[in-house]
């Protein structure tokens, strides 16, 4: 069975539009049955699949500038297919790279919580359930049946809402087709963003918006030089932000684009 060109689901996040409001964070948590605890101020323990970081240009008052950067899982492809830092190291094959969609999935029932993947991920995109989730009396009603609630001891991360991919495929099958339209599969964060700063789609498909947007000269990826080949691109008209995206030192000259784009 010959297959068309594989899809590569990715995101382009426009940092000029991002307001740092955090709607993407909450949309993700609401969509994916993410637990919450009474004290969420220890951010290393706080599970937020999507997290908005605050970048600053480091200058003193009044030259200080801030930029807000939402960070989902990058669904790294690595240098060749499926060589994501996390997929490579998982001893339980609990995380897997799908060549057909480019999505790095996490299967909670296989994970036994060694957290090797967390050490491996350079983006801190993975979170560990140190405790069992507790939903206050009655709140378990809002849990979605499309995403498995996790128990303690497993790692979880942004899944590019692949449960929506599953549901979109069901709808497509029902209508007698196999291909999905661009607006049929969108992640919760993309849908919620009130500033329309997040765009999601198939990076390989010239008809999808992200395909064009990633070619924007202001587009950059985080930690580009680590060659993780992430699928999340960022746009910023501010050079200090683009430089901060890969921790360029003051002394370093121009932004380098790596040879491999995939």
């Amino acid at each position, binding site marked *: *069975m*010959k*297959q068309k*060109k*594989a899809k590569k689901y990715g995101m382009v996040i426009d940092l000029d539009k991002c307001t740092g409001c955090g709607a993407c964070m909450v949309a993700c948590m609401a969509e994916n049955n993410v637990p919450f605890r009474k004290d969420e101020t220890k951010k290393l323990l706080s599970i937020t699949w999507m997290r908005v970081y605050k970048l600053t240009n480091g200058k003193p008052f009044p030259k200080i500038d801030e930029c807000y950067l939402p960070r989902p899982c990058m669904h790294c492809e690595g240098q*060749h*297919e*499926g*060589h994501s830092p996390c*997929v490579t190291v998982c001893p339980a*094959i609990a995380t*897997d*790279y*799908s*060549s*057909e*969609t480019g*999505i790095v*999935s996490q*299967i*909670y*029932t296989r994970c036994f919580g060694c957290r090797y993947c967390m050490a491996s991920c350079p983006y801190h995109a993975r979170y560990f359930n140190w405790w069992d989730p507790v939903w206050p009396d009655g709140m378990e009603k809002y849990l979605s049946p*499309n*995403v*498995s*609630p996790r128990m303690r001891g497993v790692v979880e991360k942004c*899944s590019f809402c*692949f*449960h929506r*991919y*599953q*549901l979109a*495929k*069901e*709808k*497509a*099958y*029902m*209508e*007698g087709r*196999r291909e999905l339209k661009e607006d049929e599969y969108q992640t919760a964060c993309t849908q919620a963003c009130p500033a329309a700063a997040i765009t999601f789609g198939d990076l390989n498909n010239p008809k999808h918006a992200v395909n064009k947007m990633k070619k924007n000269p202001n587009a950059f990826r985080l930690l580009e030089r680590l060659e993780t080949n992430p699928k999340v691109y960022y746009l910023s008209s501010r050079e200090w932000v683009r430089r901060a995206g890969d921790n360029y030192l003051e002394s370093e000259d121009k932004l380098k684009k790596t040879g491999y784009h995939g």
Partner: protein
Amino acid sequence: MSTLDDNAKAIEDNAEGEEVAISSPEINIKEQDNGAGGPVILFFIVGLFASLIVGWIIFPKLLYSKKRQPIDFNHRLHIAEVEDECESCHFFREDGTYSGVPKLEQCVECHEEVQGNSPDEIKFVEEYVSQDREVPWLVSSKQPDNVFFSHVAHVKVAEMECVTCHGLIGESESLKVYEYNRITGYSRDIWGKSIGGFKKNTWDRMKMDDCAECHEKETAGIERTDVKTPLGRLFDNLIAISFPGMEMPSNKGDSVQTERDACFVCHK
């Protein structure tokens, strides 16, 4: 060595009414040998059969608990009444999701009042319909929470028959007793009636391996020319070195690790 005759003489000599068994060391040893061998093998065999019986017969009896369905539903009777067979009550919604076991409003379309004369139907109408209470059916094909099963992909796209996975339920006139595993809570139909996990028909078991049996043949063999898995890359390099200029074989699978379907095709 004394002969038998000697022994007999020895017995005769003492025959003043008493028969005393004369034990000579050699004979005793032989006897003991025979006696010691017997019990060991016997006990082994006893142990073997006992554990086999426990494992194959008693274990399943203890492991599975029985429950009756709240209402004894007659599939054969209802199939005769409807037009689309299984899909009349177990239908696809517009968005492609599957309705599963029908809800009360489905049944009420006909059973607002008692239609026939079976005691179960009367019970159904009195205890459930008139009180607007959903029937707590025990679903024998219920999979764990981490499973994502798409009915539409199998029925509409793969054009599979319902009986392939669910068996000949449609021909049954009553619902069979619901047996469930005491440890896990799942229906016996998942592991299968046979405690050894042997199956004769495709619908005897519903574990992941049973899904994989079919999937390995039907879906996992996707050939692709644009995507290389690590193994594929290795082979490519070997071939490129050994047979320069030869056309590369295509690779299989969606998952990079297993070269089969990606995990999230079936899991959530």
